[in-house]
Structure formats: structure tokens, C-alpha cells
């Protein structure tokens, strides 16, 4: 094999220094958001309900996970996703949610009957102006959805969702962009979409045994 002298190796031209508008933009956005209050986690009073419910629940609970993100952080996430080949559902979810707080709690001791939990949550959130739009109990399971009274006047929808399976309780407070939330719901919750146009509507889902004609 013929040796190649170093001088004979092809010389690469120097790479031109290209501007990096995306990174510059992202860095600036970070700085602006970090300087402001945008990176603060979930803002009150929306998420005050979260703590209020937890304090009101009967029995003893151990927090497993608690995650929250405010609008600033979620703006960063959206910006980040715009730069990556993220799946469309991830982008849609990031667009939909403006702020959230999620926590998972394990029941340790005391009363864990679903009706008692529901009543406690009703009372705690009611004091803060939330009203329950849906409550469902079956066996040890509980699911409840609350929204703030008068929320419909705005495009942003505040929601509090409580779900309990007899052992673990998931509590979510979030505010989302209504159109995006609904687009996401219609895409990913078949029963939800069914409620507006198909026979298997959401109330059917909560209504499995009552389909006979009167």
C-alpha cells in the first residue's frame, strides 16, 4: 500500500461561521424568562386548590411524586420541542397546557372511603370557588373533575382532576388553552370524541348498564 504523506492529504476548507439564530433565540428566551417570574412553578391561586385538597383529605397520605410547571417553563418546553423532531402529540400537549401541578399520594392509614374523599375535596375546593362538574364512584375508585366558577368566560380552562384507585391518589391542577386541550382530548380520548357525534358518548361511559328504552 502506498504511504500517504501528510502533505498529500486533502486540506479541508475552514468551516464558515454560521449564525445560530435558533440557539441565540432560545438563549435569549431563557434569559428573559429566567429574569422574569416565568420560571416559577405553578402560580397561585389556581394551584392553591391543590394544597387545600391535600390538607382536607381524611386519613394519612404519603406523597410519592409532585411535579409542577409554570407558564414560563412550559414556554421553554414548547420552544425546545420546536427544535426537536418531537412527536406531534407531545407538541400538542405542550401547546395545550399553560401551567400544571401533578402529585401522586399513597394512602397510609385512616379513612380512605371514596365518598369521604369526594366530600372532603368538594368542601375544600368549594371554599376556593371551584365547582365539581363530574364525580364518579365505583367500588373503591373515585374520579372527580372540578373547574372554577365562571371559567367559561375565558379561553383558558382551569381544571382540577382527582383520581383514586383505593391505594393511590392522583391530583392534578392545570390550566390549559381550551382549544388545544379539546383538540388533544378529541384525538386521544375516543369516548370524549364520541360524546359529540357518536353513539358511545362520555355519558355512556359513565352509564354502562342503562341503555334500554324506557
Amino acid at each position, binding site marked *: 500500500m502506498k504511504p500517504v504523506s501528510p502533505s498529500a492529504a486533502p486540506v479541508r476548507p475552514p468551516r464558515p461561521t454560521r449564525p445560530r439564530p435558533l440557539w441565540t433565540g432560545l438563549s435569549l428566551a431563557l434569559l428573559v424568562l429566567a429574569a422574569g417570574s416565568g420560571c416559577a412553578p405553578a402560580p397561585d391561586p389556581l394551584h392553591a386548590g391543590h394544597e387545600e385538597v391535600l390538607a382536607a383529605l381524611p386519613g394519612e397520605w404519603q406523597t410519592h411524586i409532585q411535579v409542577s410547571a409554570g407558564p414560563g417553563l412550559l414556554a421553554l418546553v414548547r420552544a425546545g420541542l420546536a427544535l426537536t423532531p418531537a412527536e406531534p402529540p407531545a407538541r400538542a400537549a405542550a401547546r395545550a397546557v399553560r401551567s400544571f401541578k401533578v402529585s401522586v399520594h399513597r394512602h397510609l392509614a385512616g379513612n380512605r372511603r371514596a365518598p369521604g374523599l369526594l366530600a372532603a375535596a368538594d368542601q375544600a375546593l368549594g371554599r376556593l370557588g371551584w365547582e365539581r362538574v363530574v*364525580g*364518579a364512584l365505583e367500588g373503591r375508585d373515585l374520579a372527580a373533575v372540578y373547574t372554577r366558577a365562571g371559567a367559561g368566560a375565558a379561553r383558558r380552562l382551569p381544571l382540577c382532576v382527582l383520581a*383514586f384507585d383505593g391505594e393511590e391518589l392522583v391530583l392534578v391542577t392545570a390550566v390549559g388553552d381550551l382549544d388545544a386541550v379539546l383538540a388533544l382530548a378529541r384525538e386521544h380520548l375516543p369516548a*370524549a370524541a*364520541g360524546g*359529540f357525534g357518536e353513539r358511545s358518548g362520555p355519558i355512556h361511559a359513565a352509564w354502562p348498564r342503562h341503555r334500554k328504552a324506557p
Partner: protein
Amino acid sequence: MKTGLPSRATLAALSLALLLPARAAETPAGLVDIGSLSPPAGGGQFVEVNLRGDLLAMAARVVAREEPALAEMIRGIRAVRVHVVSLDDSNRREVKDRIARFRQDLADRGWERIVTAQAPGEDVAIFLKTRGDEALEGVAVTVLEGDREAVCVNVAGDLRPDKLAELGEKLGLQPLHHAGLKLRKAETR
């Protein structure tokens, strides 16, 4: 983490809240309150849905693009209340008594009882609150399915009698759908 959350109930709850989210200040004439029913102590099914004007208006805006006819129907609705309660020894008597009082209360307040169907294991009553000859302000459907289950549906707003069946079907409210069909049948006679 266990993922055995109450999936059906959660899904129903979420989808309802997301899709049918309260013009709430004043109580619509067709809205009646059966009050709070006791869940069965034995763990049977218990569902309550309480949707008011703002959220319904919001839902109408959202579905308007894809289903304008449905959006128009939802715009007329001021409130939807649904109760589905399994009965057991702990709550049977109370819920049955409550439904009986509710029916009597509706009749006393001038609601028109358009359907009474009593068969073994089933007791259905459908009431309408009318405004003049053409308009409906409210519909209330109560069903006692033997000793097993009680259902109460109340829809209030500016309702069109000829669209009631369709509305019930679209919202997945079978008792409302059947009330609409009965009403249609009664009108064609």
C-alpha cells in the same frame, strides 16, 4: 406505580369536563335540583354530572367548527344534570323516596308528565317544562330500574322538542334520547 385508576370513570369524567365544560349566575327555569343522593355503601356505581352555562357555551364554541348543528343545540342548553346511582340496602329506600318526592315536586310546579311507564323492574317518568306552545325550558327524566339503579337526567335551556331525541343521542344520554322519541311520537298523533 399502579395504573389501575378508575379508567372508565376517569375517562368519562375527563371527557365530560373537557368537552362539556358553566352563563351560571341565574338559575334557568328548567333546572331542578334533586339534591345530593347517597352513594351505595357497597361500592356500586355513582355518577354525578353538573354542567352549567359557561362551560356549555365554551363547548359549543369548540365543536362549532366540526359540528355546527350540534354546536347550535348546545348553545340552547343552560344546564345539564345527571345522576346515576346503584342501589343497595344502604341507600335504596332514601333514593327511591327522593325520586318519588322529586316527581311530586315537578308535578306541583307545573311540569307536564308526558311519559309514565311502569313495568316489572322498571319505572320511568318523563316531565317537560314548557314555555308557551312551542318552547321547552326543561326536561327531566327519572328512571328506577328495579331495586338496582336510579337515574335522573335534567336538561334546562331553550330546547327544541323536535331536536330533543337528537340531542340525547349526541350527548349519549339515552333517557333523554328516548324522551325525545316519545315526545315526537306524541306530537305526530
